[in-house]
Every structure is written in C-alpha cells, then in structure tokens.
C-alpha cells in the first residue's frame, strides 16, 4: 500500500474504533433523549434570560451563541480520550506501533467534531423556531459548514489540551469543565466582544468559536460576504494553529515518556 492509503486506513479504523467506543455509551435513543434534551435545555436556559430581560434581539443573540457553543463543548471532550487511553493502558502499545500516535488520536476522536456540529445545528434549528427566531432561507445553509468549522477548531483545541493535560491525569475533568465555561465566557457567546476589555478581546480571537461564531452571526444578520469569509478564514487559521500545537505536544509527550518512563502499561 502507498503511504497515503496506509494513513487513510489507519485513520479510518481509528475513527471507527472511536465511534464504536462512543456508541457503547450512547444509543440513538439515549443520545436523543439524554444528550439532545440537555442541549436544547441549555440553549433555552440562556434564551429565556433574554426573554426575562425583555429584548428579542438579546434572546436571539443568546440562542445563536449558545447553540453554536455546543459544537465546542463536544469538541473539547477530546480531552477525555487520553484519560481513557491511560486507563486502558494502551498508550505504550500505541507508541510502540508503527503508526503515529497523533494521527491515531486525532482520527479516533474526530467523531466528536461530527457529533458537535450535528448537535449544535440541531440545537439551533430546534430552539430557534421555538423562540420565534427567523432563520433566513437559503442563506442559513451557510451556517452548516461554518458550524462544522467551529466544531473542528474546538476539537483541535481540545486535542492540544489533551497533550498538555496527559501528564496530570487527575486534573482532566477539571480542565474539561473550566475550558467549557471559559469558552462560554470569553468567545462572544453571551455578550459582544466589544463588551470585553481590550486584552480579553484579543485573547478571545485566538480561541476557537469566537471568529466562527462571528461569521455565523454575520450570515444570520445578512452581513456582506467578505466580512463573513474573513471571519471564517480566521477560524480556520485558529484550527490549523491549535492542531500544529497539538502535534508538537504529542510528539513531546511521546519522547518525554520514552525518556522518563511514564508510558505505563502495568496494572
């Protein structure tokens, strides 16, 4: 097989293994009755605050922001993968195999990006009409690829964090949850970027979600295509940036593990 075909095969199988793992937790029924209900409730929770404030525009702002945030929440769950890997004791076997751990890892968790994008879109398209929001057809179709981009960028970010956090397994869930609320707080999900202090605004721009969400709001508000594409491009750059850092952190992890013996498979 050519190198490319081999890599594709590795990614394919890793993706399927990840998916099988996920489907052991969620059936279609529990995904819909558990996860989707929670997601819609989360979006409604914030949208209702808009209603309480008594401003439709604020309601829609919160609704869109929190729907798209769902894509990020799911993507960041990639952090849990490394804990699972550590618990399973498979990491040294992975490092000892002829495949690159980062390729395997990123493919294994990529179902999370797919799941995130689907969840976010479902949230938007279910909660939107529930709150009487107008989703302008056919422009709204552009939201689909943009949401996928946000999910992907968040997934890359989560994978980067996974490489960092791996050495401190006990803080894994802490990092997942603080990352969730930090993205919720800092990415223009609930208040416009202009409300933040300048420094935070800049920081917010290198996080996933922020730029992609701006593009999505642009689509829904009828902004001009150039602005939308500019924001989307920024989100893509952010995604590539985090993935590059993820790559570095995993290589570092593997070589450090070889040096200090932290690649453990003992009981």
């Amino acid at each position, binding site marked *: 097989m050519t190198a490319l075909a081999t890599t594709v095969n590795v990614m394919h199988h890793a993706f399927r*293994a990840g998916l*099988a793992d996920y489907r052991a937790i969620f059936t279609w029924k529990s995904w819909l009755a558990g996860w989707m209900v929670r997601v819609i409730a989360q979006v409604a929770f914030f949208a209702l605050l808009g209603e309480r404030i008594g401003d439709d525009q604020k309601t829609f702002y919160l609704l869109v922001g929190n729907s798209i945030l769902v894509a990020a929440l799911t993507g960041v769950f990639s952090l849990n993968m490394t804990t699972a890997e550590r618990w399973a*004791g498979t990491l*040294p076997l992975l490092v000892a195999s002829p495949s690159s751990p980062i390729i395997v890892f990123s493919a294994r968790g990529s179902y999370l990006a797919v799941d995130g994008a689907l969840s976010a879109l479902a949230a938007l398209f279910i909660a939107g009409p529930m709150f009487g929001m107008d989703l302008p057809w056919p422009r709204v179709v552009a939201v689909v690829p943009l949401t996928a981009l946000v999910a992907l960028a968040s997934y890359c970010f989560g994978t980067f964090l996974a490489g960092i956090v791996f050495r401190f397994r006990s803080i894994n869930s802490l990092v997942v949850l603080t990352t969730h609320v930090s993205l919720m707080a800092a990415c223009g999900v609930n208040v416009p970027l202009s409300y933040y202090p300048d420094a935070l605004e800049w920081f917010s721009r290198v996080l996933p979600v922020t730029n992609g969400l701006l593009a999505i709001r642009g689509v829904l508000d009828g902004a001009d295509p150039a602005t939308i594409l500019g924001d989307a491009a920024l989100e893509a750059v952010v995604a590539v940036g985090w993935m590059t850092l993820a790559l570095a952190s995993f290589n570092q992890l593997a070589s450090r*593990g070889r040096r200090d013996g932290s*690649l453990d498979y003992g*009981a």
Partner: protein
Amino acid sequence: MGTPAVEIEELSRVFEPRKKPPVVALDDVSLAIPPGEIHGLLGPNGAGKTTLVKILSTVLLPTSGRARVLGHDVVDETKAVRPLLGIVFGGERGLYWRLTGRQNLAYWGALYKLSARETKARTQQLIERVGLAERADERVETYSRGMKQRLHLARGLVGDATVLFLDEPTTGMDPLAAREFRTLIAELRDEGRTILLATHDMVEAETVCDRVTLIDRGKVVATESPRTLGQVISRFQRIDVEGVDAAVLGEIRALTGVSGVTEADGGARIEVDEEGATRVVLGRLVDAGATSVKTSLPSLEEVYVQLIDDRGLEL
C-alpha cells in the same frame, strides 16, 4: 550465527524520581538472543524485567548501552523496529473494553499498516487461533480474564511480528489455560518467531524456554538452559517437619547434602542441596516418628541465593 534477533549490550536504566533517591532498574545488562529462540527472562517482581521489555519495545529509553532488534537500534531506528515487534503483557489492561474483540484487533491491524482486506483476514484467523471465535463480536468487558489474555496475544500477533515480547502473559490464568497458552507459544517459535518471555514463574520458564536468563535487581545473574535450571530446582529442596527431637535434628544436620537446619516453634526446616539427599533425610525422619513432614521447592529468591553463591562451581 547471523544477526541476533535481539542484541543487548551493557544496557542500563536509572529512574530518578523527584525527591527520592535514584533507582537502578537495569545495571549493565548484556544478552544476545538468536532468531527462533524462546528466551526466558526470569526474575522476581521488581527485578527489571518490565523495564527491559519496555526498552526493547521502544517505549523507554535506556540511560546507557544499546539494544538492537534484528540489527536495528531501538533508540534511533524506531521506524524500522516497530513493525517487527509484537508486545503482549498480562493482566487486564491494554485493551479497549467497550469495543468487541474483533474491533480491537481490526484497530491494531490498521495501526500495524495492514490493508483493509488483510486486516479482516488476519483478524478472523487470529480469533480462531486463540479460540475466541464464539465471543469475537462481544465487548471485551464481558470477557473472562483468560479470554482477555488470549486477545492480548492475538493483538500482539496482528502485525505478524518476527519478534515477540511477552511480559508475564499468564498472570492470573488458571493452570489449564496457562498450559494451552504455552503450547501456543511453542507453535509460534516453530513458525520461526523469536520470543522473549518475561516471567517470575520458574516452572513456566523451565517448560517452554530454550534458554533462560536469570535477572535480579537489574543485573543478569546467569543465562542457562532450562535443564540446568531444572537441576537446580530439583536439587534444592526443603523439608518442614514437626514432632522430632533435637537429637534427631542434630543427626540430620550432620548428613551429607544437608545445607542447613533451622528450628522454629516445635518444628524445623531442613534444607537440602544435593540430589538424593532428600530421600535419606525423609527416611530418617519417618524412622524417628515425625508427626508431619512436608517437602517443597525453594522460592525463586532462594534459588538466586544459591546460584549466586555457587556461581563458578558447576553451573
């Protein structure tokens, strides 16, 4: 002899835990294993077996020295080494519990760069070989310990490894399962694979290995044929006895082949280090009217002590 399958030269590994004194896990180990050999690595827990296996599997770097697998350096030439290796360790970890046995194998098959078709065929073949055909499509979490271990072995074989590292693969297996496992290991050797078997079980080492290296506290004590090892084991025996008086014990102490007698609350332990002496001692004890006599093999640690003391005599 051509290129050894595994060649280890003056390999050392020191761990430096924070705020604790450094630990020497491997101390100047040298060893060569020719292709097609089942080589036992025998030592008590903490002897450095796993450290050695880890270094050879490319997941741990040595502090000094070198190791090669089929001529490729395990530190620098990982790309060449990794496709040649199969790694199997005992216990329950190292598998994805929520996936089925077949899904686990297919996943690792892909990681070992098999094509989709090869993966499918190899997976099926291995499932049958290790006797998991009936349960292959059930999740690993439903498997018994023995089944998990057989799946481990199949996983190690999925890349068609030329060199296999087995680290305590029969830990916790029942005796029957362990015996089947050992038959399988012999078959693998007959297919031309080289196998390094780390174990703390002397009987296991004696029954399946072509040669055995004894390792203790990170140092190689000796490399022997299992026949020699078997002699050592059968030569050294100990006899626990109750109900004989001190005079009889004194008499036994004087017999040739008795290396020691220690008395302890009402009974005594007699140690024998010469073939045939056991029979004589037992006869004498029965004549003296001993109420309870029990013989047992020495522990691994005791054999080491003997070996270290005796080295250079006849081993």
